[in-house]
């Protein structure tokens, strides 16, 4: 009788103690989230006085206790199968079990206001493509459209006003890329397949299925060299199981069969190693770089473009890809649509600045707008205050029907005092009429290097007032204007 009375307490204790007991018995929880497990903190008298130690202990325990995977899966199953809800607000469940990534609408506010000016977003893609073309490179700049807009037939109603705005923003960028030298717009081809009832996205994943990957890969390879896709025998191979990333975000396992996209052979005379650079987000990675999942079948890049480097955007932004960008003769740039703001604000300036390094343009003149003495056609010197506010007067007129790149060359840069950070010229924009120009170089620390300030088409260069901050005595040579008209621009030391 006494034992029977204790049963509820014993049952409760057993449930509570089960995960820790299993852990003590050696059962280990595999990594559930796509980040490393939280490290166990150092435990000593000092660390016990810091809240961070306990927070870290909580995180470490959570990542290590067994049965959490089962709990997540059960929670997810209850939410999805019983309530038809997503257990993760970042994932929305659409019709027929299709899953969608809610942050794809994050380029707009809930009231439908885009978080970036659509024209500026398009300008950033436009200027990048045109600059790569101007540098003489074989160029492909492509935005991978989102599942929400490409496969809308099964989409749930996710913040309809924001979704409409994000879709329109996406369309503006895609349309610009369609008409830009070096740009590539996949939307019409993907849309056509969708209209034919052939989905191009995976049901439980935020990425393309084999059809979408094939469209992307074929177009990219053919841009690198015509007929390359055909030569490599690109096509669907054996079916493999794919764990949907959106399902994993909800803590459940949802697999679907999807043929691997494979290349059968290396084309004759493949590009020289190091001459093709692939820069991109996960769609490029999934399409060209990731293992195919079929035993013995290599990723497309390894078969078709052996020895060619690739960089993700984190590497590009961190400067870890600079040499590869400088050396490549062909550059493929891919970005997912939801990153359009990040693309404009932090991603595009570095490839533009690197590609434009050797280009030269028509000299113009500086015009100070801070009341200081006008340098005219002479060099601009940063005064003792450490800052000068200027605009550029191009020689060929203030406006232009094609985008331009203003090259602001640094002639001399006084060294920093010992122990101080290296000297650099920092550029900040104070546009007079309209938004700041996208993809401008934020800072330059190399003598004989240059800052680049894009001027979008139909925009007056004189609107783009900038403040240059640097060590007093820094001299900038007269600014140059490089026309981004779809043709290679003259190079420094060339004709």
């Amino acid at each position, binding site marked *: 009788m006494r034992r029977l009375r204790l049963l*509820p307490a014993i*049952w409760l204790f057993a449930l*509570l103690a089960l995960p*820790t007991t299993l852990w003590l018995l050696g059962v280990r929880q595999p990594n559930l989230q*796509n980040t490393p497990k939280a490290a166990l903190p150092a435990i000593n008298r000092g660390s016990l006085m810091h809240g961070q130690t*306990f927070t870290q202990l909580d995180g470490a325990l959570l990542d290590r206790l067994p049965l959490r995977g089962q709990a997540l899966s059960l*929670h997810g199953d209850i939410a999805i199968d019983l309530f038809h*809800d997503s257990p993760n607000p970042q994932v929305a469940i659409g019709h027929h079990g299709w899953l969608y990534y809610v942050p794809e609408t994050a380029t707009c506010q809930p009231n439908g206001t885009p978080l970036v000016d659509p024209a500026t977003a398009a300008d950033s893609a436009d200027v990048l493509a045109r600059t790569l073309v101007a540098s003489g490179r074989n160029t492909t700049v492509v935005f991978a459209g989102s599942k929400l807009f490409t496969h809308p037939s099964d989409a749930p109603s996710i913040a309809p006003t924001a979704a409409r705005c994000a879709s329109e923003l996406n369309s503006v960028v895609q349309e610009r890329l369609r008409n830009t030298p070096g740009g590539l717009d996949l939307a019409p081809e993907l849309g056509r397949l969708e209209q034919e009832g052939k989905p191009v996205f995976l049901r439980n994943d935020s990425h393309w299925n084999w059809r979408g990957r094939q469209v992307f890969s074929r177009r990219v390879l053919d841009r690198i060299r015509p007929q390359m896709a055909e030569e490599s025998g690109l096509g669907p191979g054996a079916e493999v199981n794919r764990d949907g990333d959106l399902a*994993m975000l909800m803590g459940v396992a949802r697999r679907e069969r999807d043929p691997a996209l494979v290349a059968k052979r290396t084309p004759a005379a493949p590009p020289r190693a190091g001459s093709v650079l692939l820069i991109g987000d996960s769609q490029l990675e999934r399409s060209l770089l990731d293992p195919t999942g079929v035993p013995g079948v290599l990723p497309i890049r390894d078969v078709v473009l052996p020895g060619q480097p690739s960089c993700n955007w984190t590497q590009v932004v961190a400067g870890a890809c600079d040499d590869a960008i400088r050396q490549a003769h062909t550059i493929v740039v891919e970005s997912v649509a939801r990153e359009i703001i990040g693309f404009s604000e932090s991603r595009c300036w570095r490839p533009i600045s690197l590609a434009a390094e050797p280009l030269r343009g028509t000299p113009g003149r500086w015009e100070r707008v801070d009341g200081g003495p006008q340098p005219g056609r002479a060099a601009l010197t940063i005064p003792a205050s450490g800052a000068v506010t200027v605009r550029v007067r191009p020689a060929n007129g203030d406006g232009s029907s094609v985008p331009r790149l203003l090259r602001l060359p640094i002639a001399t840069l006084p060294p920093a005092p010992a122990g101080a950070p290296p000297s650099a010229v920092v550029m900040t924009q104070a546009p007079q009429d309209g938004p700041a120009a996208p993809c401008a170089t934020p800072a330059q620390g190399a003598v004989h290097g240059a800052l680049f300030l894009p001027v979008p088409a139909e925009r007056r260069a004189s609107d783009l007032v900038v403040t240059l901050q640097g060590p007093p005595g820094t001299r900038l040579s007269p600014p140059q204007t490089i026309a981004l008209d779809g043709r290679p621009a003259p190079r420094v030391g060339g004709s």
Partner: protein
Amino acid sequence: MVFSSTTFLFAFLPAVLLATWLSPLRLRRFVLLFAGIAFYAWGVQEFVLLVLGSTLLDWALALGIKHARDARQTGLARLLLVAGIVQNVGLLGYYKYAGFLTHQLDRLASALGEHGPSVLSVALPIGISFFTFEKISYLVDVWRGDVEPRRDPIDVLLFVSLFPRSIAGPIVRLREIQNDLREPRPRPELARAGAIRFAHGLAKKVLIADQVAPVADAAFAAAAAGGPTTAAAWIGALAYSMQIYFDFSGYSDMAIGIGMMLGFRLPENFNRPYSSISITDFWRRWHMTLSRWFRDYVYIPLGGNRGGEGATYRNLLIVFVLTGFWHGAAWSFVLWGLYHGMWMLIERRMGWRGLDGVRFVPLRRAGAFLIVLIGWVLFRADTLHHACDYYRAMVEPHGGMTAAVSGALTHQAIAALAIACVIVLLPGTRNGGRWLVDAAGRIPSAARFASLGLVLPLALVYAFSSTFSPFLYFRF
């Protein structure tokens, strides 16, 4: 540490239960004292020593008060009592109210064109409002002769640090658990009741409060960002009313349940407050240990209702302003307290507070609930300005549904809200947790079985998976 956190549920609690059950009686309170200190240190490390030091001071002052009383030195006893109250109120005042008060002084000085004091920014130690009141009650009870002071400091340290109720109540008086403090005996019947009670509380917290919370959050966030629609505002206020009740009463159920499993009988804190037929009735059922504290240590010492109508009204208003201020250092809490105090006065004036022979009970319940719901907006809003915006959204007709609230109203949230409303609307006067533990018969037995066999595992699954938030692609 929070009761529904993974660390507490799957590591701390089973370890403490096992250590308590297996330790010999003479060591058991040391185990509990260590557990209490560890539990508290998990949240506010540097503050532990201050709490322990302050508690030891209370212990010494209580002995001094007793000694002075026995020696008929009433003045000295009173002086020691005042010293004890000052040190506790000073602690609470500094950590909880110094930032607010300096901010008000700064604003006043700015309005007068003067330089005000620098605004203090003091981290609020978790649970300070609760254990400070408990420490004060101990000193006052000793002074009144209602309880013998404890000669063993471990008793007082354990009283203050007893982890099931150290950070969110119920507010316990030492005399209520003095025998258990000396010899905590988790008897089988108590452990059984505690496990059922704990399961009940965890389910309320995880399966109802946490599920409706996003609805309330979305509505109040919408108010702060420009205004929800009328329907969204009302749904948000309803969701918050359910969230706060199921969250707080669930926490209390868990505290009472853990207390029972460790050998302590903690006082009840809730008794179906949304079944109240008046605001007076509501405060007899909501956060009962706080109401009781204010009644015994503020209202009655102020004269209670012994000084005529005017004095009674004054005392009531003082108590409710203090009640509001106790909940948080902001004008919105003061106004919330005043709002309830005003309703108490109106009920007293109109003769609506009596419970005998009440007619139109459903209507009275609906009315009382509506008043409470409207008050919760003040309580929940970040600022008075946001509260005003929210009230405006509730009364100014604005069609449609705010997208964020609509998004938060998942099927699960709707189900949780509906279940919460049904529980609240159910007839009956008995506390659900107590009914589940004590009631006899086939239905209570089935409910107990369901609670332990189905609801508890489900609640643990939800608690275990609640912090899952991977990045889609962390390197982006």
